[in-house]
C-alpha cells in the first residue's frame, strides 16, 4: 500500500476521459488488471500544484451505477470502495461532455450522492462552443455544490485549474455542503439534470453542426460503405507504400551490424550464433516495425476521431446477417492490430453468446504479426507491378488475404451462432460521439506503447525462440563428406521431417514445417525461423550468403507452395498469447481448445485447396 492519495476519473463513455487521463499523466502510465476480473486497470502518476504525487486511475466509462458489464461493475465497486485490490478513492474527477450535459449530469448526480469529494471537469468545451453552446461553469458549480472546471483535454486546456481544485479536495479543505439528491428515482434525477443543464447553458445559438454534416456523407447508405471500403483500402496500400524507406533503413542497419559482428568474431559457433541466429533472426522481424506502426496509426486515428462507431453502424446490417452485433465490429477491427486487445475489447459486448462468437472469430482478423509473414512471401513471389490506376499488385494480394480472413470469420460466425453459440441476436445500441481531431501526442503515445510491446516481443519471445531454433538447427553437425545438408542432419530437421509427413500433402516443404513449430510462440517468428534456417543452410557459400531471405525463398519454394503458406497463415492459430487471453476471457480451457482445433482444421483444408488449385492451374 502506498500512502499516495488516489484520484479516480469517472464518466460516461465518450466524455473524453482517456484523453484527459493522457493529458494529466503524460507517458507515465501503468497498465494492469483488477484481481479476479478481466478488467484493465489504467493508472498513472499526477503531481499536484505543490508537487505532491497522486495516483490517478482511469475507471471504465459507464452510463450509470447500475452495471450491465464487468467493466461497469468495476467502476461502481471502486467508487463504492468495494473493489478488491483497490482502495477507496480520496477524490473523484467527474468527466462530463460539455455538449451533452442533460445526459452526463444525471450520472454526475448519481455519483455525487455517494459523498466522495469530487470536481466536475466540463470537458470538450471547444466542441460545445462549435455547436453554439455558451456555458457557465460557475453557475453549474453553484447549483451542484462542487467545483466545476472547463477543460479541453486534447488541447491541454484547463488542466492547471483542475489540478488547483484537486489539490484543494485532497487537502480536505472547504468541502462544500451540497444538496443531496438521496433517494431520487431515475426519472427524478433526469429531470434534475435537465434543470441543471438549463442553468449551465447561458446561451445557445443554432450553428452548423460539423458532425451532422460529415455524417451525411459518412453514414450515407451508398457513400458511407464506399468511404469505409476506401479507407480500409488506403490503409492497406499505405502499409506498403509508406514503409519502403524506413524498412530499407532498418535493413541497412542489420546488415552493418552483421558485418561488424563478422569482423569482430572469429569463425565458428559464436559468429554463426550472432550473425545467423541473433542478427538475422531478430532483425528479420524488427524490420516490420514500420508497417505495424502504420497499421496502428490508422486504427488509432479511426478510434480517436470517432469514426470507429460509424464503421460499426455501417457494418451492423452485415454483422446481423451472421448473427453478430455491430458492436462486435470494434473488437474485430482492433484485432487487425492484434487479437489480444481485440479479444479484451469484447468485454463491451453484454450478450455472452454474442461475445463468445466474437472471441472465437477474432483470431481470423489479420493481425499485425501476420504482416511480416505476408510481406516476406508477397515480396518474394508476387511481382511488384501495377494493375492500373496506381494500384499495386502486391497491395492487392495483401488486401485479398485480409478479405479472406474476414469472409472466413463471417462464415465461421454463421455456423457458430447456429451450433455451439446459439442464442438470441443481441442488438447494436451505442452512442456515436462527435467527430474530433485527435491530439497528435495521444496518437504518438499509442504508437510508442505499441512499438515498445512489439520490440519487447522481438527482444524476448522472438529472441529466445530464435536462439533455440538456431541451436536445434546447428546441432548435430553432419559428418564430413556427408551429402545430407546441415539443416537436414540437425535435430530440428529431423523433427520437421516427421511433421512434414502431415504437411506435405498441402504443398509444404520441410523448411516450412520447421518454421511452423517456433511460430506457435508468435506468428512473426516464422519469418525469423526461415531466415535462420536458410542462413545456416547457406553455410559458407558466398553466393548464397549474398541473397536476401526473399531470394532464398524464391529458389526453394514453388509459387503454389508460397500461396498455400499465405493461406495457412490467414487461418492458423499460431499465437500463444491469443490462446492464453482466450482462456482468461472464457474462464477455462474448453473454448481455447475448441478455437485452436477449428482454426488448424480450416487452415489445413484451405491451404490444401489453394495448393491443389494452384498446381492444377499450372502456376
Amino acid at each position, binding site marked *: 500500500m502506498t500512502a499516495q492519495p488516489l484520484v479516480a476519473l469517472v464518466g460516461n463513455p465518450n466524455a473524453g476521459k482517456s484523453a484527459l487521463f493522457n493529458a494529466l499523466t503524460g507517458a507515465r502510465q501503468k497498465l494492469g488488471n483488477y484481481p479476479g476480473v478481466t478488467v484493465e486497470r489504467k493508472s498513472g502518476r499526477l503531481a499536484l500544484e505543490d508537487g505532491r504525487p497522486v495516483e490517478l486511475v482511469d475507471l471504465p466509462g459507464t452510463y450509470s451505477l447500475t452495471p450491465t458489464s464487468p467493466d461497469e461493475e468495476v467502476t461502481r465497486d471502486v467508487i463504492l470502495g468495494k473493489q478488491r485490490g483497490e482502495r477507496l478513492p480520496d477524490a473523484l474527477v467527474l468527466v462530463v461532455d460539455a455538449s451533452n450535459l442533460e445526459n452526463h449530469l444525471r450520472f454526475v448526480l448519481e455519483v455525487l450522492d455517494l459523498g466522495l469529494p469530487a470536481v466536475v471537469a466540463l470537458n470538450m468545451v471547444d466542441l460545445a462552443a462549435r455547436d453554439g453552446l455558451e456555458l457557465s461553469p460557475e453557475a453549474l458549480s453553484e447549483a451542484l455544490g462542487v467545483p466545476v472546471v472547463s477543460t479541453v483535454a486534447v488541447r491541454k486546456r484547463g488542466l492547471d485549474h483542475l489540478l488547483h481544485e484537486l489539490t484543494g479536495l485532497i487537502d480536505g479543505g472547504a468541502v462544500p455542503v451540497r444538496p443531496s439528491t438521496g433517494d431520487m428515482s431515475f426519472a427524478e434525477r433526469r429531470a434534475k439534470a435537465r434543470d441543471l443543464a438549463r442553468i449551465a447553458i447561458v446561451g445557445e445559438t443554432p450553428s452548423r453542426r460539423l458532425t451532422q454534416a460529415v455524417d451525411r456523407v459518412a453514414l450515407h447508405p451508398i457513400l458511407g460503405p464506399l468511404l469505409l471500403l476506401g479507407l480500409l483500402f488506403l490503409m492497406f496500400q499505405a502499409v506498403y507504400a509508406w514503409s519502403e524507406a524506413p524498412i530499407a533503413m532498418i535493413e541497412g542497419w542489420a546488415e552493418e551490424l552483421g558485418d561488424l559482428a563478422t569482423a569482430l568474431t572469429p569463425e565458428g559457433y559464436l559468429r554463426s550464433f550472432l550473425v545467423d541466429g541473433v542478427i538475422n533472426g531478430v532483425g528479420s522481424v524488427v524490420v516490420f516495425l514500420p508497417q505495424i506502426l502504420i497499421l496502428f496509426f490508422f486504427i488509432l486515428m479511426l478510434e480517436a476521431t470517432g469514426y470507429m462507431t460509424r464503421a460499426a453502424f455501417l457494418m451492423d*446490417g452485415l454483422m446481423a446477417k451472421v448473427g453478430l452485433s455491430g458492436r462486435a465490429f470494434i473488437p474485430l477491427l482492433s484485432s487487425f492490430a492484434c487479437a489480444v486487445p481485440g479479444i479484451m475489447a469484447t468485454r463491451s459486448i453484454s450478450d455472452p453468446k454474442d461475445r463468445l462468437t466474437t472471441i472465437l472469430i477474432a483470431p481470423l482478423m489479420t493481425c499485425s504479426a501476420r504482416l511480416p509473414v505476408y510481406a516476406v512471401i508477397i515480396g518474394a513471389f508476387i511481382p511488384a507491378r501495377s494493375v492500373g490506376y496506381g494500384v499495386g499488385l502486391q497491395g492487392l494480394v495483401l488486401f485479398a488475404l485480409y478479405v479472406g480472413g474476414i469472409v472466413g470469420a463471417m462464415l465461421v460466425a454463421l455456423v457458430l451462432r447456429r451450433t455451439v453459440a446459439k442464442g438470441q441476436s443481441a442488438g447494436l445500441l451505442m452512442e456515436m460521439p462527435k467527430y474530433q481531431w485527435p491530439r497528435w501526442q495521444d496518437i504518438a503515445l499509442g504508437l510508442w506503447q505499441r512499438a515498445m510491446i512489439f520490440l519487447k516481443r522481438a527482444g524476448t519471445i522472438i529472441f529466445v525462440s530464435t536462439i533455440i531454433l538456431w541451436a536445434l538447427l546447428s546441432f548435430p553437425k553432419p559428418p564430413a563428406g556427408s551429402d545430407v545438408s546441415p539443416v537436414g542432419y540437425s535435430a530440428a530437421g529431423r523433427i520437421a521431417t516427421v511433421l512434414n509427413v502431415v504437411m506435405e500433402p498441402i504443398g509444404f516443404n520441410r523448411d516450412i514445417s520447421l518454421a511452423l513449430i517456433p511460430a506457435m510462440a508468435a506468428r512473426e517468428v516464422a519469418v525469423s525461423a526461415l531466415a535462420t534456417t536458410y542462413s545456416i543452410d547457406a553455410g559458407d557459400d558466398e553466393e548464397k550468403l549474398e541473397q536476401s531471405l526473399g531470394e532464398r525463398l524464391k529458389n526453394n519454394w514453388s509459387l503454389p507452395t508460397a500461396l498455400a503458406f499465405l493461406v495457412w497463415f490467414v487461418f492458423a492459430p499460431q499465437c500463444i498469447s491469443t490462446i492464453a487471453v482466450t482462456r482468461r476471457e472464457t474462464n477455462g480451457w474448453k473454448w481455447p481448445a475448441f478455437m485452436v482445433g477449428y482454426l488448424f482444421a480450416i487452415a489445413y483444408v484451405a491451404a490444401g485447396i489453394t495448393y491443389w488449385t494452384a498446381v492444377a492451374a499450372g502456376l
Partner: protein
Amino acid sequence: MGEAQRLREFGVEEGATVEVLHRAGLLGRGALACRIGRMTVAMRHAHGDAIHVRTDPAATPETAVASSSAPSSAHPSAQAITAS
C-alpha cells in the same frame, strides 16, 4: 432488460424528441442513427420499434418524429416511451 435501461440512459423517455437521422444498409433494414436530445445513438429496428413515437406534424419528413398515445405538451413535438 439491460437494453431498455440503456435506452433510458440515452435519454429515451416519455416526451423526448427522437429524430431518425440515418438508415444504414442498401438492402433490408440496417441500423438506425437517431438523434435523442443532444446525442446521436445507433440502434437496430427492434429498438426503434420498442419506442412508441408520434410524428411531429411540424417536422420535415426527414425529421419524422413520433410520439406516444398520450401527448402532453401543447407544442406538437414528439414524445417517446421506452418499452421495457
